[in-house]
């Protein structure tokens, strides 16, 4: 099957277009956060007197600029937040089209090398974000999702770029397609999970210090985020939803390996890091049920797990050679 160079070129243009859109979205989200009215950081359940000593009336607590009730006039930060959301939609559509054309240009799923994997994962992150935003207001999260998407795309088009081409025989397997699809979806969701977890740590630090009347370096950000408890629950839900899929991705990879090399598990560096990532995410889920680990410590474990996931993609492919080395990087 020959490679269709024209389609591949269009795919590249679309991806550049998506990057431009995400850049605009990033600026809009940042402006939205900056101009937003913050909330009081003293959490619910604290006696009013105590909360009042925090300086803001209790009634304003729920009137979050984001997620608050719509009362006609747009509160500060709302308009730029809306622009950010719309442009993120646009960027996601452009990126999706870019991924599609790349796939059509080589007549196969477009995740056969690091460049394609990175671009598709960026698309998965963006798609997961806009899909989640259909059900709830996520404008506060926009900046922290668009930023890693842009970074990934930037890295993809500069360092990882590989011409559209056919696959080496070892990568031609439908189990590979299943395995990589699952891994990409997990990658996208884990990225959002890590962003929410980080924001939880910020909001939680802000709330804890506010309780004892102290200020926190990132107070300005903490005030503009939903309550820490909500962020924690959201992060957990994302991880809990994705962990079975990640387990499936690892198992599908093992089935592919069995089909290609005659063993389903050989502690190849890629397999080893998939295992490490899996164990650390399992540790995170455990930590949430273990006294003394709930909350902040467990969140750090989730971030470490995401670090392992990233290392498996960048570190292992670039630093360590194994059977899994992709064609082109």
């Amino acid at each position, binding site marked *: 099957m020959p*490679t269709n160079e024209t389609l591949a070129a269009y795919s590249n243009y679309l991806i550049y277009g998506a990057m431009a859109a995400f850049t605009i979205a990033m600026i809009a989200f940042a402006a939205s956060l900056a101009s937003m009215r913050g909330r009081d950081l003293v959490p*619910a*359940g604290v006696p009013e007197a105590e909360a009042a000593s925090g300086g803001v009336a209790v009634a304003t607590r*729920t009137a979050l600029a984001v997620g608050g009730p719509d009362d006609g006039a747009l509160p500060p930060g709302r308009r730029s937040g809306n622009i950010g959301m719309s442009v993120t939609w646009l960027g996601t559509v452009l990126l999706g089209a870019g991924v599609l054309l790349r796939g059509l240009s080589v007549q196969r799923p477009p995740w056969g090398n690091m460049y394609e994997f990175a671009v598709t994962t960026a698309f998965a992150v963006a798609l997961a974000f806009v899909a989640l935003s259909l059900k709830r207001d996520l404008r506060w999260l926009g900046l922290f999702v668009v930023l890693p998407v842009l970074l990934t795309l930037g890295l993809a088009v500069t360092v990882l770029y*590989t*011409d559209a*081409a*056919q*696959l*080496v*025989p*070892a990568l*031609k*397997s439908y189990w590979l397609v299943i395995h990589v699809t699952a891994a990409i979806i997990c990658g996208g969701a884990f990225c959002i999970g890590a962003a929410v977890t980080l924001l939880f740590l910020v909001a939680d630090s802000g709330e804890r210090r506010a309780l004892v009347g102290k200020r926190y370096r990132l107070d300005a950000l903490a005030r503009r985020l939903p*309550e820490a*408890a*909500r962020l924690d*629950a959201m992060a*957990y*839900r994302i991880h*809990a*939803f994705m*962990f*079975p899929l990640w*387990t*499936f991705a690892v*198992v599908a990879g*093992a*089935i*592919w390996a*069995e*089909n*290609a*090399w*005659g*063993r*389903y*598990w*050989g*502690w*190849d*560096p890629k397999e*080893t890091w998939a*295992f*490490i990532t899996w*164990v*650390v995410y399992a*540790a995170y889920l*455990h*930590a949430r*049920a*273990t*006294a*003394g*680990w709930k909350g902040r410590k467990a969140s750090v474990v989730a971030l470490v797990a995401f670090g*392992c996931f990233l290392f498996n993609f960048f570190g*292992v492919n670039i630093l*360590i050679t194994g059977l899994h080395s992709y*064609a*082109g990087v």
Partner: protein
Amino acid sequence: MNDPMSAAASRESQDDAQRLSTAPLDVDSAVEPMGIGVLGWLRWAWRTLTSMRTALVLLFLLAVASVPGSLFPQRGSNPLRVNDYLANDPVKGRILDRLGMFDVFSSSWFAAIYVLLFISLAGCVLPRTLLHAKILRSRPPVAPRHLARLPEHRMLDIASDPQVVLDSSAAWLRGHRWRVDTSEFDGRGGWVAAEKGYARETGNLLFHLSLLVLLVSVGVGAFNGFKATVIVREGSSFADTQAQFDSFAPGRGFDPTSLPPFSFTLNKFSADYQRGGQQNGAARTFAADVTLVREPGAAKESARIEVNDPLVVGGVKVFLVGHGYAPMVTVRNAKGDIVFHDSVVFLPQDGNFKSTGVVKVPDTVPQLGLVGFFLPTAVVDPVLGPTSTFPAADRPAIYISAWTGDLGLGTGRPQSVYSLNTSTMSRLGIEELAPGDVWALPGGNGTVTFDGYVQWASFTVAHDPGKELAVVSAVLAITGLALSLLIRRRRVWVRVASGEPGVTVVEVAGLTRSEHASVGDEVEALVAALGGGPSENPSRTPAPGQGSKPQT
């Protein structure tokens, strides 16, 4: 409210009602060893080992212990690179080797971690399984004394008979597939207790138990299975016996007579490569066409073995894992008699299949040895000398140097067929040959003819009898996980008391783990079904998602 139970008992039942998992209570691990000698210490050690905190620590250790396995070459998967490492840096290499860094996943310290983890797992999960089995057969727990303290709580007055309220609550709950226990209205009060989502705990236990089974199946495969590799040239045959393999790695319990008696001939190996572009020379297709005989005397079948598409025969699988070139060489002695005529496997050295190999001709006096490299697309590079610029055989050539003397075959020591010991030989010269070229060896030592080449393919033959069980346990583990993480276990209680004449005071309360959406919707639906309509909710905070945290 009039509760017949004593305060202590009700405290206990309150804890009971709020516990939605058989997870061990964390206080266990905090218990100090009691001063009752060896038994006390043993009990303490067992409790510590099977506590959640220890499991967590062991999980971390397992992750950390795996890291060196990815940083250093491993004997199991890459013995040649381990040898290279030891040769390049013997001091550090020796120390690392002593520490097991080249055999991480079969080292004793790695085994210690996972054995402890799995003992902990069994010690934790088996009692939980028994407990859960009991819970599955018992009734939903009675309501905690203070329903108003639960995360979801509604109070409503209903103009109807208390017993009717109890009955319709129970009916509604049963209709929505809750497990329900209920009391009669005794004149002062009555209650309904209901629970749903037992599959969460079942799934959690299933997941952990499947991990145990997975470990067993990995062990079974390693013990009873085998893995072997063989190189077959085009036109040659291979019979599935231990002696014919180039390498053979059986498990300790492997029975060699269980090798299925098949044989095959490699008729043709085909490879395609990308031509031009950034990935010039990258492989695109590999296929080995073979003629298979399943057992001696059976009919011949043709089959194709491809990467990702192994041949399955007699319970083992044959995988295509590598390929290369085998130049065909004819050697004649000074009298012109043929003393060697065969294809010889050359091993690829780079991506463009510059390959090296050796021809040994023991039947001449003195003996003759040829060392050379084969270039599928030969180019003489001004810097690198003769190299290959493409993996396909577009312009094949061999460069061969000839040696005479003693091949050293008589010493009885096994020799590699890929290397020539030239210490007792002298060199005759070197020559470049294209297919068909004849080289007259200097000194009247005969001639060497490069007739052409065939290709070879290498195959892995493997059998893992634990594989099926491993897949089954993996599927069960994923199923268990999905149940465990996606299903909410939740409880609902209804308590009625008679209020003003003709009015029943109804309390509806619900409890779930904080992580998922609360049980609020279901409480709301029950209230609506009782005719309460959207109710005032004293414990619900205005921000969504806030009210779902149980007060622990």
